[in-house]
């Protein structure tokens, strides 16, 4: 077991340092690149925070949907092949809900401010 501080605490600290202390001193093209770099760290922080839970839930859904066991990568490959071959489609019970949840979990890490995601998230919360 590794010691503390945790990776999330570290990436967050670096992102906050760059955002609060460095960004105000930088202008022009480097300011743009710095913003991109801070966004990268924010993605990493969100992934480190959320991935474990969303991966476990995804694995459980895939195991149920496909009826066999495997790693997340193996089961995703099997799902992709099943869709490509027409063995699984939107009529397959649970498929649409699985794709929606998996995609929502990706957006929560990649682009939580994306308008389509916010719209769908509000729908989840309103329901």
């Amino acid at each position, binding site marked *: 077991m590794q010691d503390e501080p945790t990776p999330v605490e570290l990436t967050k600290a670096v992102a906050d340092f760059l955002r609060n202390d460095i960004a105000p001193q930088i202008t022009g093209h480097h300011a743009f690149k710095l913003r991109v770099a801070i966004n990268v760290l924010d993605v990493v922080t969100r992934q480190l925070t959320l991935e474990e839970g969303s991966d476990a839930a995804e694995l459980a859904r895939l195991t149920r949907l496909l009826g066999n066991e495997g790693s997340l990568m193996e089961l995703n490959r099997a799902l992709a092949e099943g869709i490509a071959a027409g063995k699984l489609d939107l009529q397959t019970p649970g498929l649409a809900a699985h794709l*929606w949840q998996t*995609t929502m979990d990706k*957006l929560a890490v990649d*682009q939580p401010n994306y308008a389509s995601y916010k719209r769908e998230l509000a729908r989840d919360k309103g*329901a």
Partner: protein
Amino acid sequence: MIESELSRSVVAWCPGATGVTGAAKLSGGASQETWRFDIVHPSGNMGAILRRAPASYSAAPERAAGLDAEARLMQLAYEAGVPSPRVLHVLTPDEGLGTGFIMQRVEGETIARKILRDDEFANARPILARQIGGVLAGIHGLPLQNLPALRRMTATRELKEFERDYRSLGWPKPVFELALRWLRERDPGPSAEVTLVHGDFRNGNLIIGPDGVRAVLDWELAHVGDPMEDLGWVCVNSWRFGEIDKPVGGFGSREELFAGYEAAGRRVDPARVQFWEVMGTLRWGLMCCGMMQRFRASPDHSLERAMIGRRASETEIDLLRLLAPRGT
């Protein structure tokens, strides 16, 4: 310095010009660069833009029409009354500037978010969807026999390329698989009418002023094919920049777009437009994945490319909203 080469070029073809000033690079990748500069002239300086591929770069990417074709298309568009910069000069090898062309600089805004939010464009926004319909009709009406050599594309060919690009990732993306399957099953076949297709007509590639569309840019992906492709692409959610209830670039409705197109004497096939909107959404998703591949392969580790790679999931949610909408 590029200004000395530009000055030599300009003096040779622009009567009265004495040189150039203020050259600045606006954007540039490995294959293409855009520069702005002013032509110095006794009757007043003229704003100009250089678009070029540096001399060292020869192999054109397979999808690109090429800079000579771009120049020709812009000139044809300009002559037909489509908002377009006037092409002033096509570069020749002896000028030492590489291949490309020089065009008149059109003032206005291309940054989509500014066009969608700034007060300056408040009067333009409500008319843009309809106006864009008219502009696209003008592009699709350009006579085929005058066009430079361009790729002939169909949905079937494009889908094969998507499939190849997707498989090259070696990374399972079930939503992309679903979209590929959906598209294959609904491929409408070759269109009855084949026209010039701009190929990247969207918010971000248009110069907009307070009065509306001033110029259509970036003809790099122009080809010949189904005109409904351009109408579908301009509606892809990625080009609405947050204004997701206004399908046409975040400006307005499909009905306005179609009305503008039909008022210019052309017919819309809404089912084909919808098909091409799904195609376009997947296409942008695959382009994001391509950025990830380039990030990984190239030594400069561009963080921008890496982050665009992480935008593929935006197209996945948009594909689901199109193919498997939840409730209403």
